[in-house]
């Protein structure tokens, strides 16, 4: 799946996204930063699904948004097909946006309640002035069919749909411009379990059909395992481990990944009985003031001397298996 000779579609290099904390009424003083994403580096290959997991607040969504330039990154670079897109402005950025789209978490908040489904899906086409007015309607109907909705719904409003249907509308909007790369920001966590599978299967079918590349952000480990080719684990703004899914699930190296995976229930009562959970102590430190050395040193069960002093390097321990830990 993730062989080394694959073409790199998106390259993220030392990406940093800090949100400033300011004080003052008119004159804002800069008093600190929330280091939501603090120097992460990885590649996404064409046609693959990279799963990005981590607990709430670790910077997964921020990473996705910073890659799409919805936030202006504080530092680092993002390359799309070898071309740097960080710092792009105006028309250049708009051109790039056609190639990269996003699917949002909350299907209730991500559709404008005042617009018809037809207008919502046609918006990308209008903004980029693609197709004639009359052809757009046909294209929207086609997209509705692609995501498994009745084209008859074109004049309906979002509040007339269920959560799963709304998420399909969001997917259709993301597909309208024929993008190469889609960031799916927890696209199923707001849905009922019975609907989750449908949307996951839809995303997989679309990937096959259109050769899409996904960055799939989630915190549901079994879903990530199902859909991803490779999986990256984040903790407190940093990547701790990146490997293809089999390696990661069979041989997790970073203590955080091990703890995370030990929390996944196993659908086999015999094995489930023997499953040992690694319970982490304490809370995630504040991203405003991360600990010195390894970010995980405050909670790591295998912590030792260098962890408090030096930040571990994110290095390739085995071919295709990257870990940031002093143990390796």
């Amino acid at each position, binding site marked *: 799946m993730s062989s080394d000779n694959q073409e790199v579609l998106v390259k993220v290099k030392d990406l940093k996204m800090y949100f400033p904390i300011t004080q003052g*009424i*008119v004159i*804002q003083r800069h008093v600190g930063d929330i280091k939501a994403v603090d120097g992460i580096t990885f590649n996404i290959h064409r046609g693959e699904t990279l799963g990005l997991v981590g607990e709430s607040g670790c910077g997964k969504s921020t990473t996705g*948004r910073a890659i*799409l330039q*919805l936030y202006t990154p504080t530092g680092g670079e993002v390359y799309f097909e070898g071309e740097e897109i960080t710092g792009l402005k105006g028309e250049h*950025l*708009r051109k790039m*946006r*056609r190639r*990269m*789209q*996003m699917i*949002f*978490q*909350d299907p209730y*908040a*991500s*559709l*404008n*309640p*005042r*617009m*018809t489904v037809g207008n919502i899906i046609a*918006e*990308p086409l209008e*903004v*980029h002035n693609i197709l004639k007015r009359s052809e757009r309607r046909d294209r929207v109907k086609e997209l509705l*069919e*692609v995501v*498994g*909705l*009745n084209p*008859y*719904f074109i*004049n*309906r*409003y979002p*509040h*007339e749909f269920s959560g799963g249907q709304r998420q399909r509308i*969001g997917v259709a*909007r993301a597909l309208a*411009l024929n993008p190469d790369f889609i960031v799916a920001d927890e696209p199923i966590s707001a849905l009922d379990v019975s609907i989750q599978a449908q949307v996951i299967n*839809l995303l997989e*079918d*679309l990937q096959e*059909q259109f050769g899409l590349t996904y960055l799939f952000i989630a915190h549901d480990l079994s879903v990530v395992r199902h859909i991803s080719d490779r999986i990256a684990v984040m903790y407190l703004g940093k990547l701790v481990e990146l490997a293809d899914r089999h390696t990661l699930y069979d041989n997790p190296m970073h203590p955080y990944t091990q703890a995370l995976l030990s929390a996944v229930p196993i659908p086999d009562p015999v094995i489930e009985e023997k499953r040992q959970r690694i319970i982490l102590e304490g809370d995630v430190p504040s991203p405003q003031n991360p600990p010195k050395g390894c970010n995980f040193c405050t909670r790591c069960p295998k912590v030792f001397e260098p962890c408090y002093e030096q930040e571990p390097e994110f290095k390739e321990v085995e071919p295709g298996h990257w870990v940031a830990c002093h143990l390796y």
Partner: protein
Amino acid sequence: MAVAELPAHTQLVRKPRSLMSDSINRLRKNKLALGSIAVLILIVLAAIFAPYITTGDFAKQDLMANNTIPHWMLPLMPKGAEQYLRFNDDYILGADDLGRDLWTRTVYGARISLAVAIVASTVSLLVGTIYGLISGYVGGTADAVMMRIVDFLYGFPFLIVVILLQTYFKAVARRGVGGGFGQAMVAINESMGGMFFLFLAIGLVNWIGMARIARGQVLSIRRKEFVEAAKAVGAPDIRIIFRHILPNIIGPLIVVETLAIPGYIFLEAFLSFIGLGVDAPTPSWGIMISEAAPGIRTYPNQLLPPALALTITTLAFNFMGDGLRDAFDPRLKE
């Protein structure tokens, strides 16, 4: 992947419902609001067709008929009034102390009140919404500065400013001094029957509250994911503001503005009452009440028409505003 064609009988035939049509349906069920709207339409029609349903001359003095009343109004008068009353059935509501027809003046007074209601609310809605949109959408330092300006204006003693403005311009008008600008303002004012300064005064203040509300609404909407989705698609700011933010905030803003209209009408009446409103002989309900108030014991019939008209109009606007609020923004309902 595509859905199979649905058989004909399962085709969904229900019409799509927009939030707007939902709101209108809710409004239709609200009897009080519908009644108020009907009353307001009547008042508007009366104001428009005033020349046809009245004598058409609100300033005409029939000095022989001053302080007369028609016979049907006798029961409204105080006991023992027959001794001093003079009757004249030419005027259905009677005539005031200068012999002017009260019916005509009351109907023409509706023009002033409605003009104030429409102009003041439009100005305040437009200016306030645009100001609030910019402040809320741009954010950061621009937002901070713009909102501090609003805070500053909010703390201004508005009534004193209006009194000073009115006194100054009235003085300019009387003495013909004040330079080109003052003269131009006075000319505009006179061509509008003294209403221009009223609009100016009311408009000057009321956009402020609107701007605050609009800004708050923008702040709550612009963080929504559909705005982010539009950005991800590459939509320019103008499009985001007009397609995504404005349609989602305009409902509550219109409701707030409608509920503020009675305030404007009262403000005009109040300013006219204390002599800072429209110029005589233009009839305004405030002026009429002010003129009739001293004679409340002897001639209550002169006070009644403008007072009733004012009450009914403001009540109708209030009920309509309530109805609109319930229809357009059900969450605001307590």
